[in-house]
């Protein structure tokens, strides 16, 4: 594996880590309106209060790592997706401050709304970004050459809705691990509906994507990809069936892990559709990659620092293991 491939793998890894980790935090926000009272909302907040910030940091690192390893993806994508990305950021702002502000106000309803709204807007922004990215971006001489609303299409809107369902699934299955009683019981039902929605959207995306862009179809079924690309939908189907089964058996831990696998299957399928392009339809990963010295310089950090980061992240989850109570929603 050469340096460029190693880096596309690493950037992919960071992005999926972000999607899963912040996905469940955002998902809990998306489920906020379904809580029946303030105590339930406190419990939901408490389940992520000590970890949401560290989860969110993966996108900060993801942005930096993408900028450093594939500057052309970073600059073209960010110019092209100006509006969805700022939408995402505005959502993150309200989601983030809600943890502190909500705990310090009499009028919790206002910041409950901001928390839910922030999570919803952030998720939609991400979904539009993803949808537009798969749809391709007009470029010229290594720069963005499209219009301000190129990102908006029925397909990108559908991906945004799909991501809302996906994050709800992650959020609900995470709540199974962290909560008890009413909140957990409701999360079982929520996870059930969410996984059905996710399966539906995954099928739609799988048909719509190659229909939109036959080149994707060709890439999926090109040699040697054709020999292993079918494992991704298979992984998806197995995860889906197991999630339904384990939800029925009232398992608390496994649905979350299986949901991650479901996400992974979709993510790998998309990567297989896009590779070897960095930006469809014209920019390849080699054209997009940074200078060799730069790739090596950040690789040192990833090799020596990232394992430490992962270690203390796991430690932090271990410190806060177990079910949460409402009073842990604020320090």
């Amino acid at each position, binding site marked *: 594996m050469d340096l460029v491939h190693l880096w596309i793998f690493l950037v992919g890894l960071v992005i999926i880590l972000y999607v899963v980790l912040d996905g469940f935090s955002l998902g809990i926000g998306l489920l906020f309106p379904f809580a029946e009272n303030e105590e339930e909302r406190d419990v939901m907040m408490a389940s992520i209060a000590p970890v949401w*910030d560290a989860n969110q940091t993966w996108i900060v690192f993801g942005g930096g*790592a993408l900028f450093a390893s594939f500057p052309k993806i970073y600059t073209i994508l960010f110019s092209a997706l*100006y509006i969805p990305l700022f939408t995402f950021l505005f959502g993150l702002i309200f989601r983030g401050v809600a943890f*502190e*502000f909500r705990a310090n106000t009499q009028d919790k309803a206002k910041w409950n709304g901001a928390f839910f709204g922030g999570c919803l807007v952030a998720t939609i922004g991400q979904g539009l970004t993803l949808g537009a990215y798969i749809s391709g971006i007009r470029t010229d001489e290594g720069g963005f050459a499209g219009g301000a609303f190129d990102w908006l299409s029925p397909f990108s809107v559908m991906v945004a809705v799909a991501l809302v369902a996906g994050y709800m699934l992650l959020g609900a299955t995470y709540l199974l691990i962290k909560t008890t009683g009413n909140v957990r019981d409701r999360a079982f039902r929520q996870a059930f509906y969410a996984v059905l929605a996710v399966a539906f959207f995954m099928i739609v995306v799988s048909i719509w994507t190659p229909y939109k862009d036959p080149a994707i179809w060709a890439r999926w079924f090109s040699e040697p990809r054709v020999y292993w690309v079918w494992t991704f939908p298979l992984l998806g189907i197995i995860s889906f069936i197991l999630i339904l089964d384990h939800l029925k058996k009232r398992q608390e831990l496994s649905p979350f892990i299986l949901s991650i696998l479901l996400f992974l299957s979709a993510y790998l399928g998309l990567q297989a559709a896009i590779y070897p392009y960095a930006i469809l339809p014209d920019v390849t990963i080699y054209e997009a990659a940074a200078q060799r010295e730069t790739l090596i310089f950040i690789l040192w*950090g990833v090799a020596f620092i990232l394992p430490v980061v992962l270690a203390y992240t796991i430690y932090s989850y271990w410190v806060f293991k177990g079910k949460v109570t409402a009073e842990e929603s604020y320090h």
Partner: protein
Amino acid sequence: MDVVLLSRLQFALTTAFHIIFPTLTIGLAIYLVVVELLWLKTRLEIYYRMYRFWVKIFAIHFAVGVVTGITLEFQFGTNFARFSQAVANIMAPLLAYEAMTAFFLEAGFLGIMLFGWKRVPPVIHFLSTCLVAFGASLSAFWIMAANAWMQTPAGYELVDGQFMVTSFKDAIFNPSFSSHLIHMLMASYVTAAFAVAGISAYFLLKKQHVFFYRKSMAIALIMAALFAPLQIFVGDWKGLVVAEHQPAKLAAMEAHWETNRDQGAALILFAIPDMKNEKNHFEISIDNMLSWLITRSSHGEVKGLLEFTKDERPNVPITFFSFRIMAGIGFIFVFVMLWAGVLWLRKKIYDTPLFLKALVAVQPLGFIATISGWITTEVGRQPWVVYGLMRTEDGVSPIAAGNVIWSLSMFMIFFGIIGASYMYYTLRMLRRGPDLESPIPPIQRMAGVRPLQSENGI
């Protein structure tokens, strides 16, 4: 309005709003380390209570700082794509390292710092506080390296308009890096110290929780006494670096138009710089002082703005006034600390209402000085985005102005809401005062803890 101006306005607004929060948290984290160390060493409950109170202030600033900070990293790509493409090989790794070494550390251990009281033993908690404080200062290391590189680029070669790295060591430790970093860290420490001292003084004047706020103020004043005078020397050093590497910026900071030959350059205390006619109005100045400051001799030559063509000069009034505001506040702080020293010798530091009122009055000045300093350094770098090599107008993204008008308006509305709510909740938190009642979690109850005494007058 064009994309260049709008994008600059947006970046200026978002950085100015953002910098308020890390400025406080970088310094306040150090303060919390000291307080927690005192708690572990002395086992006086008061220090535990102090920590729990000030960490709330820390947390609310941290949250706003984090969410506003993310927008900056994104704006390099959304608004300054051509600049980002050109400098990516050198600057982007610094941002990646900032996230990897500093942000993860802060975010990872912040959870334990805030929520870990019932779950980890005292030593682990203290370690978490230390790591958060270390992470906060470390993030400044990387971001100041990136910004300093834009001021004094090094360790690169230009190939077809693309900056290629030749040495990361030279790029990071570029000529203005050390003074830039230390100046910012000192600014944070001083700002946080005066913030805590000012808040404490306010409640001492109101005679609320006197023992609690005396202790809080004492540590803050020791911090201020260390760093406020030091900052003057660091500022002087930084001025010399600017003079050597960014003479146009220095000339704009000092509204110094004509290069002085065979005579000393005067230090202008006040003037209205007139860029059109290339001179100053209503000038009040001290003879030879600028030469003394920059060259350490009475007649040393200091390059004037006229040496640079009009399209290579920064905006003089903005650079000049923002610099004066920053430096003026620096001297006010030193003056307040001299006063504090005199009162301390006479053992009257807590009983001089005028002094306490002064502390309350200067409380917000650190933030104003920090923002002014950033305006000086960023506006003073113009018209360059990479000093002397790439013009700001060549750095923006190929996007429609409407995009930026939309996002800038959203930022103004949202920052208005966030800013107002932040102020409201912070003041509310302060008005409620410290919680001296809640029991200390069992895992934190070390042997020999000395509880609060009623005769302490809390």
